[in-house]
């Protein structure tokens, strides 16, 4: 007999007001407050500027408007942090919050965009504790244009505004760098920005601003996977103990996105997958850092703590961010990414069901990247060996279909593999070749000549290339080496200058001709 008492009606829900507010609600409230106060600020600074155009600073109306403005600033700086206001195309951003302005505030934002543009600025940072005089001076400064022949920066300097910093417009060099959209430089830039994003992102405290940044990062990675997949996959060679440990999350995200692309997932689903991958290890941030800093193999009690991170991550997300689909998806990735495909292992709560596809993809990416990365207690496995180890786990720990996708993605010799060729040359694998056997005959960046001497300019060649007159291939991999142990800085070769050589006679051409 079913009880008529309905716990779902009387119990607490994520949105119920009876319990303490969760992180999502607090963030929303914070943003709402900032947005509301920022609109007041915009209106008041505009009003003050207009009043100063017709009255002296001592006028009571001016003083009243000034008091309002100072009050706004004080409230916006309530946490004691600096106040950052950036303007673009008439939109205003205040401490990372996009202020969706009303008409009046909008006009003020447009005015400020223009005024700051006049002094080659796109925003200002107000340090906490701004005084009335400073705010008055700032308003005065904003309503006056620089004198003829005086640069914006100089005009700002002359205004002498203590506690106020001008955020300059991007320089020509900045713009030029941003314009290199399809180059490896761009890939590197994405990597650097991505690292910054996930490093700044306190994973356990994902406010909307950070989630938007993460989303933008994943969007960029997907875009790269569509346009320059070799460059994207090339980023996975950027492994080094000097990088923050969260770089692993980015690597997993890159592999996951690439695997998703190989599975023909749509952009929407790739974005879901990428976001889940980026946050799959959230639970680790809730554990003491010392555990991960250990240079020894983990002790049993430490291991059991680390094994808690999947559930910790899931619980944290659900408790603080509710049960919206994106959060549930990430919670599932967090809890399932260490579950074994065959259902064995130490996760009794996982028994009886298959992991979500995203979790299976993330699991493969996670294991592969972990093997390729150095750990405090062990060296990294060379990529070609890691791929062999992963392939052996297909059907056991990992989904065999996804493992095979990984093999298709990285090939027998994943990007970054150091290979010695039968010609005596040494090279680094760049990615799948263009010949008949792209996975076993990849594109290689030659870094030494036949005698083993380092080349001035590395040379990209395709191992599917035949000898011009004979049936034999020009080059074949004789053996692989461990770049770590050989002291080869893979990243510097990948992202340095190189020469590209068009292959002459590819084995694939012969196959086509034969068929």
């Amino acid at each position, binding site marked *: 007999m079913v009880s008529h008492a309905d716990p779902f009606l009387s119990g607490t829900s994520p949105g119920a007001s009876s319990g303490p507010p969760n992180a999502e609600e607090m963030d929303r409230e914070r943003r709402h407050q900032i947005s509301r106060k920022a609109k007041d600020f915009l209106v008041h600074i505009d009003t003050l500027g207009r009043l100063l155009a017709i009255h002296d600073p001592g006028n009571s109306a001016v003083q009243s408007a000034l008091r309002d403005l100072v009050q706004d600033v004080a409230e916006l700086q309530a946490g004691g942090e600096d106040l950052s206001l950036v303007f673009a195309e008439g939109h205003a951003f205040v401490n990372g919050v996009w202020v969706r302005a009303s008409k009046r505030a909008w006009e003020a934002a447009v005015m400020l965009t223009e005024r700051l543009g006049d002094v080659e600025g796109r925003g200002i940072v107000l340090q906490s504790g701004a005084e009335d005089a400073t705010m008055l001076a700032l308003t005065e400064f904003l309503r006056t244009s620089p004198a003829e022949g005086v640069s914006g920066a100089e005009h700002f300097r002359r205004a002498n505004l203590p506690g106020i910093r001008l955020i300059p417009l991007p320089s020509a060099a900045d713009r030029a760098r941003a314009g290199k959209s399809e180059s490896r430089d761009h890939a590197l830039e994405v990597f650097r920005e991505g690292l910054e994003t996930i490093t700044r992102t306190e994973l356990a405290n994902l406010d909307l601003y950070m989630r938007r940044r993460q989303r933008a990062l994943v969007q960029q990675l997907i875009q790269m996977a569509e346009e320059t997949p070799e460059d994207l996959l090339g980023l996975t060679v950027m492994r080094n103990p000097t990088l923050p440990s969260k770089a692993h999350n980015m690597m997993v995200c890159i592999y996951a996105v690439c695997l998703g692309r190989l599975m023909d997932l749509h952009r929407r689903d790739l974005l879901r997958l990428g976001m889940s991958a980026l946050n799959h290890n959230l639970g680790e941030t809730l554990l003491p850092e010392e555990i991960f800093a250990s240079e020894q193999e983990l002790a049993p009690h430490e291991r059991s703590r680390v094994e808690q991170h999947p559930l910790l991550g899931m619980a944290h997300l659900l408790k603080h961010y509710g049960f919206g689909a994106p959060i549930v998806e990430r919670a599932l990735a967090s809890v399932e990414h260490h579950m074994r495909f065959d259902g064995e292992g130490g996760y009794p709560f996982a028994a009886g069901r298959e992991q979500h596809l995203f979790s299976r993809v993330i699991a493969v990416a996670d294991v592969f990247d972990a093997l390729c990365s150095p750990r405090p207690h062990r060296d990294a496995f060379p990529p070609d060996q890691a791929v062999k180890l992963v392939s052996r786990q297909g059907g056991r720990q990992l989904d065999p279909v996804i493992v095979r996708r990984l093999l298709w993605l990285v090939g027998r010799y994943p990007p970054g593999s150091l290979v010695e060729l039968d010609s005596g040359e040494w090279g680094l694998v760049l990615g799948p070749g263009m010949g008949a056997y792209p996975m076993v005959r990849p594109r290689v960046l030659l870094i030494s000549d036949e005698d083993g001497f380092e080349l001035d300019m590395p040379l990209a060649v395709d191992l599917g290339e035949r000898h011009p007159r004979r049936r034999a291939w020009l080059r074949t991999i004789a053996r692989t080496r461990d770049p770590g142990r050989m002291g080869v800085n893979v990243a510097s070769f*990948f992202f340095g200058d190189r020469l590209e050589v068009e292959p002459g006679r590819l084995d694939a051409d012969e196959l086509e001709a034969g068929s």
Partner: protein
Amino acid sequence: MRGRGRPDPQDTETLAESLKTLHIAMGHARLYGASHRETWRAMEQSLGQMGQVLERYGALDLESSQEGLAWGGSMVHPETEEFVGLGRLLHREGIATLSLAQGLDLEELAKLLDVLRINFELPEYEEETLESLLWQSGFTKIGFQAVSALMEAEVLSGAASQTATGNLDDAVQQLVGLRLSDFRTESDKRNFGQVSEDAVQRAVAGSDLAGLGPSDDRRVSEEEQQWRVQFAEEGTEDAHLIANMHEAVEAEEPHDLLARLVSILVRTALSNRSELPPDEAIGLARQAVEEVYRRGNAVGLVRILDEGTALMAEDVVRTSPFAGRVREFFANAISERRIARVLLSLDLAKAGEEHELRRLVERLPDSVLQSVLESAARDPDQARGKRLRETLGSVVGDRIDAWLTNALTQPPERVVPTIALARSLGRERAASSRYKLLRHPSRLVREEVLRWYQDNLPAAELQYVLPLLVDKDAAVRRALADALLAQKPYEAVKYLRKAVGGATFSSLDANIKRDLCITLGLVAGDGAVEVLAQRLESKGVKMMGTAPEVLADVEAAARGLAAAGTVQAKQTLKRGTSGLFGPKKKICTDALQRLEARNPW
């Protein structure tokens, strides 16, 4: 085709008209969805006009601003604070330009309207933006230009309130740092082939020793052959598996994720993990179920109940000390009131939902189902309520018979819809025991059962039915009259004649007497005239001092004759109008009017 110069005024006007219609489509899409016929009609009209312009120019770049949408410098859709349209919306969301290319079709336009609808519905705190929604859609004929400066500005303004991240740049720089060889002399160059023997040994020890042999096809190593075969086979083998995965993810709904989550949380509770104790796990699972209810999702409930059923069958439940809690959780997950609401919100016309409904109904306990039926009966959308009742009926089957057996003590709100359902389904077993419900204290139930008798009235059940001719409730008596009129059983006519002609007739309540006579008249026609005429000519009627009950007998008889409506009945009534006694004359005159109007009641 014209270039992208200043557009022709005529084309500008056509485009303005098209955009006006597109806004109507946007409004419809927001209310009814992008695939609604009204939306579709407006889109067709808009695209028709837009197509002409697209044909001439190849592509349209619509620039957004606070003022509206502009094309080639001309405002084609002006907007104000009061009238916010696409221009303001795009501008507000940081989309500077929306480009439409020749070949744009209705499907893609509908997709755009859907994206805009989703954007309208996004709460402010949602991480998705219009830009990311447009990006994900992967349009082929619709392009957009986001204001890149916005993202940069957001990052910049956010960075000021964040702490510094240390020397990240240094680490990256170190990784990709300039290669020393660029600055070294020829003699400094590194020789990879001449590293120390130790280094080689170490590298070899930690690496793959296999080697692939010389570069001759005929002498390719065994390993390369194996890998080649592996790579050649896998592509075809996995194709259908991947297609299935792909489809599954694409079709995935939030409730699928929630059901999966509930399963994991419940299993976590059973396994008693210290990092998420059973109480907390169950609490989170409860909130996940709450979310399914909030979304009004029957499919999600089915999934959760499926999980529950599967889990209960597992050994882990029998051995866990928390099994009782889990069992209680699943029992409480079925909330009668809320499930009814969820079921009513189902769109049964949608493919798949009826299937899920059936699966859910099969799992629900009787009390919940009856509650659902009750709600369906009260549904203001009658067509939807009817559809749901029909679907429920086709699923519940035999369970209805059992419900009716126990219905005597159930409230009428629950029993009446069940009777209606059993009747509409023609449940024979339930019909054979329906007479028991004639004793139900609620008139609504008795009435509903009598309506059922309109379909068939077995002679054996007349003994239970006919006593209701003197039921205290008029509606019940009338429902019985309708049933008897529909079936006209001879035994009923006999019974009625006896009742009207009998000595106890006069002692009955006036209303009951009237209804008895009307029923007799309706059912028996001419066969009723004789006995009714006798009552009309009652000897108790006197010029002076006629007892009220006698007058009531006369009135009842007159109404019965009016109900009979035959020539003979009419003549009898006419005779009654020609007498000297005023009240009787009036009664008969009124009855004649009723007869003419065929208004027996």
